[in-house]
């Protein structure tokens, strides 16, 4: 089946998920629609001296050595296993299409720097010359590969047998959505019948948290942890870092039908727009986000009136939620006041690189279950955001079309549109 522009219709036939709420889409959906929070006190590193001491960490997945790169790889493996298993596509280790994966920028971390400093034998002031000297001994060889940006993707490509050159990408907090968009485009070009699209992020480490903290982006309402992320509330004060991964098997409608696969939903449209206003702030008129939303709706051949639910970026920062709300109202007009909009981040925090993919999975589950997950911790409405945020309790609803927003530092705005049914 082709869409009205003559492009192959893109559907989803497998999804996989791991977040602080648990492993697998069943457990995650149950917790999410029960309004449970996965935010907790950080225990994996000392939090003394920090303003923020909470996060939506995934503590049940281990990594050795324990670092963001390895943890992100492990999350992604879990999510991909589930997605590929559900799609029943290809043979074992033989996925019939390319891999697009959103990964956090990989870096060597403090335990490694400490080990190099120690191995250098320097007892006075340690400099990078000492670390280089220790590195040149060859005693730390495995860390070269571990901390290359392309390693997570390459290892997954190897295990799951994806085809071609795997792409690792970052569009900051919209990365997960961009991974999906790249897959949609590849199928629409007719380059492939299937694509594996993944977002993963396991970067709750001291320095990563401190970087966001220094930009005053994080909530400091640490007690109780589960109350900190409160998108659209008047007393919202920043986001809470989260972790997790989501994987989606994308296929052309024709290919999915031909092999009798169960279609979980349709990716009907993608929209994106850059913003050159500021490194972290959005254009005051909100136009880039508005254009990204309009772009996705137009790409899907729909109108704003067709949108039944908005899966918000909803970070719980003062700026994002206000601008996102304004943007939605500009796109949908007066009707937006009655269109449900909710933020999964109220429960799982902001899974950063993974967020766009995680929220894509929740959007598809919303369609599949005809139930909208809530925005929890909504006790103080913000008069500047006069929207139906599905406060605190999940709601049964007829949902045919979901718009999922993702915005990021560096002027990134990506919007995906999911539909229950394929149309020409």
């Amino acid at each position, binding site marked *: 089946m082709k869409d009205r522009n003559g492009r192959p219709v893109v559907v989803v036939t497998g999804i996989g998920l791991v977040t602080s709420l648990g492993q697998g889409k069943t457990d995650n959906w149950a917790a999410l629609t029960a309004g449970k929070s996965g935010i907790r006190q950080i225990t994996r590193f000392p939090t*003394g001296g920090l303003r923020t001491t909470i996060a939506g960490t995934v503590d049940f997945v281990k990594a050795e050595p324990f670092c963001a790169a390895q943890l992100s790889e492990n999350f992604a493996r879990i999510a991909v296993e589930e997605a590929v298993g559900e799609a029943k596509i290809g043979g074992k280790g033989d996925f019939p299409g390319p891999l697009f994966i959103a*990964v956090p920028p990989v870096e060597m971390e403090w335990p490694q720097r400490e080990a190099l400093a120690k191995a250098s034998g320097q007892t006075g002031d*340690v400099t990078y010359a000492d670390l*280089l000297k220790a590195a040149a001994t060859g005693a730390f060889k495995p860390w070269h590969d571990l901390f290359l*940006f392309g390693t997570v993707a390459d290892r997954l490509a190897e295990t799951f047998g994806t085809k071609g050159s795997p792409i690792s990408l970052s569009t900051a907090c919209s990365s997960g959505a961009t991974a999906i968009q790249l897959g949609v485009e590849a199928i629409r070009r007719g380059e492939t019948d299937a694509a594996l699209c993944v977002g993963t992020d396991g970067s709750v480490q001291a320095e990563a948290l401190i970087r966001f903290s220094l930009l005053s982006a994080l909530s400091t309402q640490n007690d109780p942890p589960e109350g900190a992320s409160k998108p659209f509330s008047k007393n919202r004060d920043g986001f809470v870092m989260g972790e997790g991964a989501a994987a989606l098997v994308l296929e052309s409608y024709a290919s999915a039908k031909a092999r009798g696969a169960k279609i979980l939903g349709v990716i009907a449209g993608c929209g994106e727009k850059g913003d*050159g206003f500021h490194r972290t702030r959005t254009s005051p008129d909100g136009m880039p986000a508005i254009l990204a939303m309009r772009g996705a709706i137009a790409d899907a051949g729909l109108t704003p009136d067709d949108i039944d639910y908005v899966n918000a970026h909803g970070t719980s920062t003062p700026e994002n939620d206000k601008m996102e709300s304004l943007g939605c109202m500009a796109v949908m007009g007066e009707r937006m006041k009655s269109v449900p909009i909710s933020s999964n981040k109220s429960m799982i925090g902001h899974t950063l690189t993974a967020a766009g993919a995680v929220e894509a999975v929740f959007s598809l589950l919303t369609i599949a279950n005809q139930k909208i997950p809530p925005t929890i911790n909504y006790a103080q409405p913000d008069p500047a955001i006069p929207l139906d945020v599905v406060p605190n309790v999940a709601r049964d609803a007829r949902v045919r079309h979901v718009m999922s927003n993702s915005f990021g530092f560096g002027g990134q705005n990506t919007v995906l549109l999911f539909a229950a049914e394929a149309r020409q």
Partner: protein
Amino acid sequence: MGQRDVVITGVGLVSSLGEGLEAHAGALKDPSAVNVDATTYAPFSVHPAVALELDRQIPKKLDQKQMEPWQRLGTYAAGLALEMAGLKGDKEKLSETQLIVAAGGGERDYAVDGQILTEMPKSATPGVLLNEKLMGELRPTLFLAQLSNLLAGNISIVHGVTGASRTFMGEEQCGVDAVRIAFERIRAGQGDRFLVGSSYNSERPDSLLIFAMGGVLKQGGFAPVQKREASPGMILGSAGAFFVMEAREAAEARGATILAELADVSATRSIRDAGAVAASLGVAIDAVKPALSGAVAVISGASGCADITAEEFDVIAEKLPGAPIRATGNRLGHALESQFAVSLALGVLTLKDGALFPPAAGSGEAPADTAPQSVLVTSVGHKRGEGAAALKRTQ
């Protein structure tokens, strides 16, 4: 899908040899022109970037201050590319231009890192010390100079390229994929105009550290990539390279000068056993070879990691017997994420000038006696990924 021609209408290049295509054309005429710093990070060498008059492409001091060197290199090179393409300041077209950037990450605060590493072993609570030091000493906006996608972000801010941006990561191969995805999208009508490129700053010990651990850096001074058996490995080079890539019809509609046609791009992946690079690069070359015509020159991004570099030259010689080869690494070093873009820039330069630059001194590269009509650009990542592109002279 209709297959549209993809053309290059602007190139921006900055490196250890200079800024702009003309400066590179000039420098490359001297077979032994190479700018190496063998002392700062001894036993490793780097090719340091030439000093740039930043105001020319990054007019606001505040923007300059918000970036670290890798971002300045890239933002500067992007400006050069837009200028050459005649798009600088064309708000309407720039607001629709898509951006695909190949990037790693940014620099650290070396002084703060050193202090922390010095004090941690002496502390009873090293984790808390780390928190307090980082909270107290790090410049808050340093994060924005470290994030991979903030090169694209800075280009959007400084040059107004705001169609949308995507950043690919993953050492050499992300540079190939950035060009490949832009190429495929233009060809299939998923966009008319892209600014594509990358930048890398080699003058940073934190980046050298990763490769030093892997034993993939050459030690003991400069040697051509073909002559590194004694001490195999890369000599990293600072560079920024950007291209304006357009659908031919879009370029012609605005009366742009077409520098070269990007006729095909292929990216492949292998498991790095002996012979794997030859096989995998062979597949990539075979994929783009039909797009080559007339006399062919080859620009190789070879790393100097001896085994895989030998395989690369062998397979090129097998696929294109007698074609003259020039290794980018012999002149400007190895620029990781940017290496493919740099090689592609030298390919465009070759076609634009109608002559291949002379062999690098001591490299054993053969002289070229005919004017190339097309250029094969190859990439073999030091750890993974193979790729090839075909450039053609425009009619």
